[in-house]
Structures are given as structure tokens and as C-alpha cells.
């Protein structure tokens, strides 16, 4: 057993920390919040040059062929700088679905372009019913002479507005169980009948869209995997993306803890640094416990999905349940311990506080995942 990061992984962390400090300071983040794209071409190309857009893709698709534990390290650093932009949607949602379910030709076409920074992808999965289970998929895909016609509405779709290809999850048939008859379809940007509306969001570093599909026709070559067998690969994608999200949340929470303990050392009230007072000290200690626990469960989940062990789904839900609560609590306490300054737009804390909130409700909150844990331990 060796439950720690390797030297290479620690080097990746150091490189990434430096990179984001230079390339993604909060001035950059704030500028991207004000714009629809959430990213600049220049920044995106730098991510490609670092090899991070293809980090987890095989070398034959232009990737680096690294694992999920490596990705965890990178995600923590991205979370630390509340990095905006379509990395998550491209690499971990759209891209990963193509990797899981696509044919070699589809993978070649899309993954190598993603890795090179030439294409962005998104995953249109959830709908206005806001369900995370297969029964939530109601957008229809009618088969018509070998082609498919997609209709319905997708909601909370990350970065569909900048994606060159949107992977749409749609129902091809009503099967015995909701998991049967779910298909995955590649819909290129600008497809006739697809409209993408960017939605104002509380966390402006995350761009969410509503995607309306009105008789969108795609060919048989647009199907990823078997036409009705999309749920199993999708579930694997979501599991992995959830771990990556947890890692991002850990990185953000750690940064809030760092900012807060630094502030507590320099802010003087009643003649002493506020960190001298136990009302502050004990809250800071609680924050550290939350952060460390969230990391433990996240690293464990990263290992579990990387190795594909049977307990992976349980590990993932434990991590997301914990991290959802932890990031929310840590970022909220961070604001409180900063006093009035923590409530301002100017201070960066609200970026983390809002990211904690958007992350909490992405792929299921703590309550949802605790129920999943209950099921997985056979309660």
C-alpha cells in the first residue's frame, strides 16, 4: 500500500501551481466572468501546450496517457485558482464520453483535436427535471432510415455555447428499466434545430446553457457506442467527472483555508491578531479538518476509479457527499472570519464561495450522494 502521490505527481503539482499563479490570477478570472466565452484562445492554447487537455487520453489520440490520480493533482490546482473556461466540459464531460463510448474513428477525430486545443466539447445530459438518474433522460431520439431525430430540452449544460461538438444524451426507446434505451449522439455546433442559450449564473466562472433541440437530424455515424446502450458508459463518465470535480473542490477549499489563516495572522483587533482568539482559531482548525477529510476521500475515489475496483461507485459518492458539504462550510467560514472585507466583490472569497455552491449542485449534492451510499452499502 502506498496512499500518497509520486514524485512525478508532486512535480506536476508544482508546475501547475506556478502556471496558474502566472496565467490565471484573479484578475484573469474576473475578466472571464464578464465575458460569455469564459476563456481566451491564448490561455486555451497554453493548456494544450502543457499537455493538460489530453492528460488522460491515450497517446494514439494525442494525449499523455496519464491516470486519474495525475488528473486529481491538476484539478486541485485548477480549483485553487477557480479557473474558468471549458476545461471541465471539454476534457471530462464531452471528451471523456467520446473516450468511453466512441469508436476508434470517433476518438481519433475528436480526442486528438481536443488534446491539441483545436476543438471543445460539451455534454448535454441533464434536463429541466434536474434528475441525475436514467429516468431523467426524456429528450427523444427517433430513428428514421438510419438517421436519428433529436427533440427536447437540456438544461444546466456546461459550456455548450463554446463547444464544437455537443454529446447529447437522448432516449432511443422505452425499455424495461430507465437505463435501457439511452443513446449518446454527437451533435456538431450549429446543427439545424439546435439552439444554445447562455444562462446568467451565480457562479459566473461556470457558464451554464439551455440547449433546445427541435428535430435535430444526425446520421448513424453520430451515435457513440450502441444505440440504446449509452447509460453504462455515461455512468462511468459521470463517476470520473465527479471525482475530478471533488479534486477541484478540495483545491478551492485549501486555498480558502490558506487565505483565511494568512489573514488571521495579520488582521489586528483588540490589540492582537484575530488568529489569537479561539473563536477564530477553532473555526480555522475545523476548516483544516474538513479540507483534509475531503482530500482523503477524494484521493481514495481517484485511486478507485483509476483501478476500476468494485468499490469505486461507493468511493465516489462518499467523496462527493463529503466534499459538497466541506467546500460549502469552509468557504462560508472563510467569509465570516474575514469580517466585512469578506463580503465585498473586490475580495476573492466570493469567487470560491460561489464555486462551492455551483459544485455542490453539479452531479448531485451531499443528500443525493448519501442516499447512494446507503444503497451501495445495502441499507
Amino acid at each position, binding site marked *: 500500500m502506498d496512499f500518497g502521490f509520486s514524485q512525478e505527481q508532486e512535480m506536476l503539482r508544482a508546475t501547475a501551481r506556478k502556471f496558474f499563479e502566472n496565467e490565471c490570477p484573479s484578475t484573469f478570472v474576473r475578466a472571464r466572468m464578464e465575458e460569455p466565452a469564459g476563456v481566451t484562445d491564448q490561455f486555451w492554447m497554453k493548456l494544450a501546450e502543457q499537455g493538460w487537455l489530453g492528460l488522460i487520453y491515450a497517446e494514439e489520440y494525442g494525449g499523455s496517457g496519464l491516470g486519474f490520480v495525475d488528473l486529481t493533482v491538476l484539478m486541485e490546482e485548477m480549483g485553487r485558482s477557480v479557473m474558468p473556461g471549458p476545461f471541465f466540459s471539454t476534457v471530462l464531460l464531452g471528451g471523456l464520453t467520446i473516450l468511453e463510448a466512441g469508436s476508434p474513428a470517433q476518438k481519433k477525430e475528436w480526442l486528438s483535436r481536443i488534446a491539441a486545443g483545436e476543438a471543445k466539447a460539451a455534454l448535454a445530459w441533464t434536463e429541466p427535471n434536474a434528475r441525475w438518474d436514467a429516468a431523467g433522460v426524456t429528450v427523444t431520439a427517433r430513428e428514421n432510415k438510419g438517421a436519428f431525430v433529436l427533440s427536447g430540452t437540456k438544461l444546466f449544460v456546461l459550456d455548450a455555447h463554446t463547444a464544437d461538438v455537443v454529446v447529447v444524451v437522448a432516449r432511443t426507446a422505452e425499455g424495461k428499466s430507465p437505463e435501457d434505451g439511452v443513446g449518446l449522439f454527437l451533435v456538431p455546433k450549429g446543427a439545424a434545430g439546435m439552439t444554445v442559450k447562455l444562462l446568467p449564473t451565480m457562479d459566473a466562472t461556470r457558464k451554464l446553457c439551455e440547449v433546445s433541440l427541435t428535430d435535430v437530424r444526425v446520421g448513424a455515424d453520430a451515435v457513440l457506442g450502441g444505440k440504446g446502450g449509452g447509460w453504462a458508459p455515461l455512468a462511468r463518465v459521470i463517476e470520473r467527472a465527479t471525482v475530478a470535480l471533488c479534486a477541484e473542490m478540495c483545491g478551492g477549499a485549501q486555498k480558502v483555508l490558506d487565505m483565511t489563516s494568512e489573514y488571521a495572522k495579520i488582521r489586528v483587533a483588540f490589540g492582537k491578531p484575530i488568529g489569537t482568539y479561539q473563536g477564530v482559531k477553532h473555526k480555522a482548525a475545523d476548516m483544516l479538518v474538513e479540507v483534509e477529510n475531503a482530500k482523503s476521500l477524494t*484521493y481514495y475515489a481517484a485511486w478507485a476509479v483509476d483501478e476500476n475496483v468494485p468499490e469505486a461507485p461507493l468511493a465516489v459518492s462518499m467523496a462527493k457527499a463529503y466534499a459538497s458539504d466541506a467546500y460549502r462550510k469552509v468557504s462560508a467560514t472563510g467569509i465570516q472570519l474575514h469580517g466585512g472585507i469578506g463580503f465585498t466583490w473586490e475580495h476573492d472569497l466570493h469567487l470560491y464561495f460561489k464555486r462551492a455552491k455551483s459544485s455542490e449542485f453539479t452531479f448531485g449534492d451531499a443528500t443525493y450522494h448519501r442516499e447512494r*451510499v446507503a444503497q451501495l452499502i445495502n441499507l
Partner: protein
Amino acid sequence: MDFSLTPEQQAFRQTVRAWLRDNIPSEWKHVGSSEIPRVEAYELLREWQRRLYEAGFIGLTWPKEYGGHGLTFMEELIVHEEMALAKAPPILNVLGVGMAGPTIIAYGTEAQKKRYPSKILSCEEIWCQGYSEPNAGSDLASLQTRAVKDGEFWVINGQKVWTSFAQVADWMMLLARTDPNAPRHKGITYFLLDMKLPGVVVKPLRQITGEAEFNEVFFDSVRVHESEVLGGVNNGWQVGITTLMYERLTLGFGLQMRLRIALDSLIELARRMEKHGRVITKDPLWRQKLAQLWIDTECLRVTGARAITKLLRGEMPGAEASTGKMVWVETHQRLQELAMEIEGPYAQLWKGADRAVDGGVWQHSFLRSQANSIEGGTTEIQKNIIAERLLGLPKD
């Protein structure tokens, strides 16, 4: 990152598992047992630890020449995990195994290292910890028990309190003040004290559970030979503190094991109890509470694995090791509280009532758990330590 075991470790796990299956005493009732050793079970537990020792499943990381096995924390972890799965009885000489032994091995003279550790493991000699005093608890360095040199002997006068196991202990880890003029932390010496020496008087204290598990210990001119000083005169603070990290780890394994057993028992309880006509494990609210306990228990396990990894790599455990006690306390107390809530009105019944659930064991463990956030350093003190040492916040 790798959670798998080597073939040798897997084989070791199988050996431990098979041994436990055949050797856990049939009289042992594990239900609800997250407990520390109870007075009524002392004889059974003494025998149990002796058998563990003979089978070679205790003191795994201690050097061979001092009764151990020279193995790693990995094997130690495996044994504790298997004990949890098998719902094995706890280790009686827990302070000896968790604290006295490692401290003696770290600081002892060759004679001391030959003399004490193996008898600790075999439970031939039970140890207690004489740190706290009426006026020195959290603020341990203010302790006042005095030791004055008289020829080859130190003469001890004073009092300890809350001393667990003193009523059965053969030896005490004693902290006493040897230089009252030195700065508080510098004038303390660590003694190995024979509890049978004339002038040692033990008075049991009845506690919240009704039992007398801890004691007052009085010293009336007790003469301790100078060869029983551990780690040098006036170096007691150092000796007492530096081994705390290892103590936290090995005691931590034991705590983790008890928590796991308690959680399994609690879930089993929830499966057979109903509220308002519905089995508790089918109630959405209860599923949330039980799942959170499961998550927190697992979290302690993987956090422990992070800390052990650092040790196996020869590094010092970092932040993750310091949070363990606090997280364990919070989780365990919540677990015990939930047991009461599951029992509902039945929670009021005490041992002896026919209708008491599981013979009233949960009432006992619930009450006992109140001490978890006091013994071994209070939660407030743990938080101060985390904030000051790990986050670098200023001291008062």
C-alpha cells in the same frame, strides 16, 4: 498511489483472519462494543491479550529483540482491520502497548528495553499513565508531584488523578517535577514507577457510568530507584511528548477498529428496530444519518492510510495525522447519540431491565463516550494545536 497489498501481506491477512476465527473467546459478547476494556471483563481480556501475544499479533512494529516482530505499520494495520471485521475484544494493556512500550523503546537504556516491553505485550504487566493531576490537566506542564533526590533514590510526593487502570496496573508512566526552579517544561522527569512500592495508594473514583474505571493515586514518600528514570533527569516533557505521535497512530488503529465494530452493530440495531411502524434503515432521514456515519468512518480509515504511507516512506505524517483524534471523537460521540435516538423511549432503560435493548450495552457505551473529548487531550486543546502548529496562528 496504490491500495493493494503485497502477496506476503495478503497471506498475512489470511493467517490473522483464520487465527481470529478460531480464537476469539466464545464468552466475548461484541454487541455494541466500541468500548474500552470494562472492569468486569479484565480477566478475560488479560487472557485474550496473552493469546494474541503468543500468536505473534501484537507489538508488530517493535524490534524483535524487545519482544516485537520488526514489521511495518502495514502489518499492524492489517491486524487491526481484521480484528474489527472479526469483532474481536479490545486490548487490555492499551496504555502499555500504545504509549509505555514505544516510549521505553525510544528512550530506554538497554536494561530497560530488555526488562519492560515484552511483558507489556504479553499483558504480564499492565501499565497506567500518571500525567494528570488535580491542578494539571490540559495544562499538563503545571504538574506539582515532586521528586527529590536522596542518594540513589528519588522520593516522590504528590497526587495523580483520573488514572485509568491504576487499580490493576503493575507499573505507571509517571511525570514528576524534579527541578521546581527550572522553566515549567524543563524541570520534569519521566519515571517508570512500580505500583507495588510502599507509599503508593490507589483510590478508585466512581464515574458517570457508575463504574470505577479511573482512580486517584497518592504518593507518600515513595522511593524510586534512579535506574527507573526514563530518558534522563529533567527531560520528561520531551520524553512524554515526542512519542505522542506514534501513540496517536497505534492507539488510532485501535480506536478505528472500535468505531468500525460499533458502526456495524449500530446498523444491525437499525435493521431490527422500527419507528412508527417503519424499519429504521428504510427511513430516508435515517438513511442519511447512517450513510454519513459510514462516510466519516471510512474517511478516518483512508486518512489513516495517508498517514501510514508517510511513515512507510520514512517521512513525518503531516496535517492528516493531527486531525484523527478529533474526527474520531466527533464521529464516535455522534454514533452513540444515534444509538440512543434509534432506541427512542427504550434508551431510558438501564442494564437489569428485562426490556432493555441488547441488555443495556448502548446506554453504557453512550455514557462512556462523553469522556472521549476529554481523555487524551480535550477537543479544545486539539483545535489549539491544529491552529497553532499546522496553520501557524499565534498563541494566546
